[in-house]
């Protein structure tokens, strides 16, 4: 094979040092933009942050002065844990995540089953799959306002027009209803990605398995249960984990749709941390709340790593 000349001299590098050279920029960048801010946030969660006060201890290097504030130990965490709003938000988050995971997985799988059939226009349908997923959550929220609004929403308008509804449904008036709307809207945005994963999995199932099952007299549901579902098990698990993490992190939809209300009844942990930090500028308790969220994510990642990577990529 003729290889064009390259400016660099043929330096002899061992495989490991060459690999380290390639990985170094990314690792350094991730240390700079993830690890250091993560550590600094952790530090802030143990201090009495006052954004207006400049004095006190600080790290000074490269001409910048990073304030360290006053160490207060576990005070922020104790304050957060003694606030009933935190616990309410935590249980609400668990409900939100549970409902979201179930909805997104079932709908994602159902849509994948439909799109896995043969019908004209299937490539087009698969393209449409990417539309809800590629929208900014701000736009997702906006367009669902257009459908669900009490006054001008299309849902109320057409349901009345079709005679299926006499009054108008106020989706955001009641806290529990608003929370469930958030679940479903987020599901609309995220389930298509689950469908993509399921479809990829379904396509790797050998057709011989279906043929054999059919010879054995298995009907549609039996083929689904014993062939499709058992082959999809790893992907199903992956979808469950990704949905769980995404559920815990959801924030922007709350901003555009409910702002945590009515009366804090759609306030989740991530929204509470966001509000405490950036609406009230209480960075100490705010980062403490957000760190409990990070702890949950670390736990999930660990489970994910053990069950997915360890099983399918033993040497990675």
């Amino acid at each position, binding site marked *: 094979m003729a290889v064009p000349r390259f400016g660099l001299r043929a330096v002899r590098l061992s495989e490991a040092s060459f690999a380290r050279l390639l990985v170094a920029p990314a690792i350094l960048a991730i240390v700079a933009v993830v690890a250091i801010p993560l550590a600094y946030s952790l530090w802030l969660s143990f201090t009495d942050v006052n954004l207006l006060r400049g004095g006190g201890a600080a790290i000074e290097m490269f001409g910048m002065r990073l304030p360290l504030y006053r160490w207060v130990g576990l005070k922020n965490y104790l304050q957060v844990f003694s606030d009933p709003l935190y616990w309410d938000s935590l249980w609400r988050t668990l409900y939100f995540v549970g409902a979201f995971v179930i909805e997104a997985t079932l709908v994602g799988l159902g849509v994948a089953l439909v799109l896995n059939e043969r019908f004209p226009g299937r490539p087009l349908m698969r393209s449409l799959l990417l539309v809800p997923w590629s929208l900014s959550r701000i736009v997702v929220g906006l367009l669902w306002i257009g459908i669900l609004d009490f006054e001008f929403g299309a849902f109320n308008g057409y349901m009345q027009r079709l005679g299926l509804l006499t009054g108008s449904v106020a989706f955001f008036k009641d806290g529990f209803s608003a929370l469930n709307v958030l679940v479903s809207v987020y599901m609309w945005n995220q389930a298509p990605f689950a469908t993509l994963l399921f479809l990829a999995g379904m396509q790797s199932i050998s057709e011989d398995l279906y043929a054999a099952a059919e010879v054995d007299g298995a009907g549609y549901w039996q083929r689904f249960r014993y062939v499709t579902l058992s082959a999809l098990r790893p992907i199903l698990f992956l979808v469950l984990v990704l949905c769980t993490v995404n559920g815990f*992190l959801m924030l922007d939809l709350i901003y555009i749709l409910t702002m945590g209300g009515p009366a804090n009844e759609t306030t989740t942990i991530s929204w509470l941390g966001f509000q405490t930090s950036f609406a009230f500028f209480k960075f100490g308790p705010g980062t403490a709340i957000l760190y409990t969220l990070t702890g949950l994510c670390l736990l999930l990642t660990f489970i994910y790593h053990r069950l997915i990577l360890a099983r399918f990529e033993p040497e990675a």
Partner: protein
Amino acid sequence: MATVGARPRYRGGSYKARSVKSRALLYGLVAVVALWLIGPFIWLLITSVSYQRNLLARPLPFVPPEVTLENYRMILGLVRFHAEGQAAKILPSMLNTLIVASVVTIVNLVVGTTAGYAYARFRFPLKTFSLFALLFTRMLPTIVLIPAFFVMFRALGLQNTLAGLVVAYCSFTLPFTVWIMKAYFETVPADLDKSALVDGCNRLQAYWRVVLPVSGPGLVAGGAFTFMLCWNEFVVAQVLNTKPGTTTLPPVIAAMNGQVNVDYSVIAASGFLGALPAVLLVLIFQKYMVQGLTAGSVKG
């Protein structure tokens, strides 16, 4: 895979010709799925070319009685109206979003691709550990970093700058890109590099001159995905760039929604305009993105 003769690839369902009833059921389900996927977005388009009074009309007409571009004229600053100050922010913020998303995409492709290649091909000390760390950063809530960015950027003078946003966006895009590219390079046969080495390339040349040129689909997948994430990002820009003229499109659209007495149809126009670039990008590169993302995810 053994595919015998002209037998079509089996995709589920029955081999036998479908009965009329099951065909009808299938088409019905397909129609429902299509409506569910695209209906809400179409409705956004319809509202954005309607007058508010027609959206409020009860009974609601099935076909919009009037079509107008007035809402788009308003948000593009061609017509004066009471919220024109907010509307005037849309185009400049779109430019900001474009700049930030493009720079982040380039950084990700350069830095993330080389790392992904190394992870796919070589063994080196701390590989397992750094992969786990990468996976963790992928799962990390970006929001926990924002208070730190807030204080650090103030100290560095990066607050309210596009450079600051680029730095912050790399925190959640870079781990993804490395992961996607690692999965992609695992699908490129390692024999390609080996034969390049045999032909006298050094390792860098094998990567740069031989492997990279055939990796277009992976680069497109990683790049388009990064661009989409940046184009759509809201929370970081909302919190870090509060000075007028320094923020990106999603916070401006959200602020538009927060204004009193702005018709929904006008807000819908700004939302549709803002969503269009990302949707088109994803639809154009969908083939590569689906391959890249599913490979990246299935592998972990």
